[in-house]
């Protein structure tokens, strides 16, 4: 089956040790995690994991179910690129002497809408956000000009395009059931 880049969004309770459990699901199935971002979500006490991995749909479905099975995981879903808005950020550390000597470097920085964060006589730091493709394209072009000292990309963060917030619905449903069970 064809491998494509899937984005998994996982919501969990804020409990220590869960990251291990989630990544272990990938390890067991010998699937590499391409990028991983963990942070607080908009819901108090709920953490959000955004994970990307190349794999086929059969595998990603099984992975999502096995992640969702973890006691402290609220929900897990997978998405293709057309179902989400996604973004990454990248930092580029460039040689200032090359930057000053070769006008093509500044041209590239303008073309890709990167932002200058720091300039000193030794190096200049740039920041760019956008899609993976854009970020890598800028890196590759800068690399050809021989000015890249360091380069780093963040993990992907993503929002779903759907008009339904499934995790909110899930939590509301769980809350209602809890109250109902106490009411009996």
């Amino acid at each position, binding site marked *: 089956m064809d491998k494509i880049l899937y984005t998994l969004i996982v919501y969990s309770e804020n409990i220590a*040790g869960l990251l291990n459990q989630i990544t272990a699901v990938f390890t067991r199935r010998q699937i590499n995690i391409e990028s991983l971002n963990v942070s607080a979500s908009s819901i108090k006490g709920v953490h959000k994991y955004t994970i990307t991995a190349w794999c086929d749909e059969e595998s990603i479905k*099984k992975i999502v179910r096995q992640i969702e*099975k973890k006691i402290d995981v609220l929900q897990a879903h997978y998405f293709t690129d057309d179902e989400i808005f996604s973004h990454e950020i990248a930092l580029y550390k460039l040689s200032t002497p090359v930057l000053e000597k070769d006008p093509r470097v500044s041209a590239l920085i303008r073309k890709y809408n990167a932002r200058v964060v720091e300039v000193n006589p030794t190096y200049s730091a740039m920041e760019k956000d956008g899609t993976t493709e854009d970020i890598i394209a800028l890196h590759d072009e800068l690399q050809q000009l021989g000015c890249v000292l360091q380069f780093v990309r963040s993990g992907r963060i993503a929002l779903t395009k759907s008009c339904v917030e499934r995790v909110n619905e899930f939590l509301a449903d769980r809350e209602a059931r809890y109250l109902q069970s106490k009411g009996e």
Partner: protein
Amino acid sequence: MSKERITGAEALMRSLEHQGVKTMFGYPGGSIMPVFDALYDHRDRLQHILVRHEQGATHAAQGYARASGKVGVCLVTSGPGATNTVTGIADAMIDSTPIVVIAGQVGTAFLGSDAFQEVDLVGITQPISKWSYQIRRAEDVPWAVARAFYIASSGRPGPVVLDFAKNAQVETLDYEPVSLDFIRSYVSVPDTDKMSVIRAAELINKAQRPLVLVGQGVELGNAQEELQAFIEKAQMPAGCTLLGLSALPTDHALNMGMLGMHGNLAPNVKTNECDLLIAVGMRFDDRVTGTLATYARQAKVIHFDIDAAEINKNVHADVAVMGDCKATLRAVTELLIPATHKEWIESFAPYREEENRKVIEPEIHPTAGPLNMGEVVRAVSEAAHHEAVLVTDVGQNQMMSARYFKYSRNRSIITSGGLGTMGFGLPAAVGATFAVPDRTVCVFMGDGGLQMNLQELGTIMEQKAPVKMILLNNNFLGNVRQWQAMFFNRKYSFTPMTNPDYLKIAEAYEIPARRVTDRAELKEAIEEMLTTDGPFFLEACVIEEGNVLPMTPPGGSVDVMLLEC
């Protein structure tokens, strides 16, 4: 209610009592001493069985849980005590057995410093447990214990680990009992989609050749009666997985036998002839399916399960009926149109007859030569009126006893299915005797597996646990030897074993014992075993190179079984 100021260790005792725990299996050590100190004052309410090795404690807890349906409890120390439980935890995970393992841990001030007997138990057990939690503060004890028991016993059951830091054992808290049956992030029983019930019934009502696969889920869900009503209403033949064998009485007219690699010929062959496969609480293990490429490709599949992660994991389900099978089986049964499937049921007969003639009869009623394994098993089953609890070790002894024991009561087979843990049998049988003291517990072991947890004879001696031990001694690691014979040109690489004198071992442990080699003595020896109060050790010297048949060769198709080799 006024709260009382007590230690974390005392809170653990009260929390266990609050959960209804009566019996536990354990072994003391440095980091769990405050708990054992508290336990001493609770001896009249909490029975603690001192095992001889922590692995034995986990298997005993598993045996207890499997026989009773209640949560089995282990209490061990940190470090090696904790790592010795790992095999049992993994075994309980893959076989869905509810146990709670409580292990001591060094104090939180020492965590991460490579302190004496410190091990990252939560890190080790996370991938092999349903839930694993470190108790670092005394005030968390009542909550953590309540949560542990709820998680272990609800939904698809499994093992839970509580890693109990020593400071939390000695520090104090205001104790109040905690009851818990809700965790926001954990849906123990998924909702049943009404449409799935209707579609399942439609498929069954249309089916000409339905076959039901009965798994342990039926026993875990206490749905044995519902299962019978379900298969009887539409007269659907059924096969049982190894762990599901006692969910349907062996002699039920629709029970066509055991599924899988060493199962019965008819249900395996018919798996590839049926037009509808109905799996209830089973997970399509590779030992059941053989190669998936040729497994029931002609059939539509209905899968009843409580665990969403099992659906489409190995075999695609046309209809998945999620939920508790006690309720879902009932719901589907209501919509069934009574049917007879007479021809289909009759079509099993030639295969049963063939297996009976070529395999079963020669195995259980031989006329000459040394004792057969199956012969001993069936004789024990008969002598116990097919009402005993069967515990097995792993290997040929396991397949032979699963095949030739008969089951008339629920929760009557306790065996290590998924993990295949040699050494499981003896301690599991100890646990079973505490769970169902009114039932006869028979454990069949090989000479290999017995020696993997032989030390538990000490527990049996001390407790006078009425375990009826049957050693099927062939002086070989028999299952591996069989594979070497069949697939490795009879190169018996490290499978012959030089055995000790087991009667002397039994004698040292003051366990009545007898050795039987002669067919003429077999029945009487078994009678002596069953009529002797307390434990008994029966060594049956069986044919050295006996083979378990029939057999689906590994990686082979489910319907192609060797009847001889």
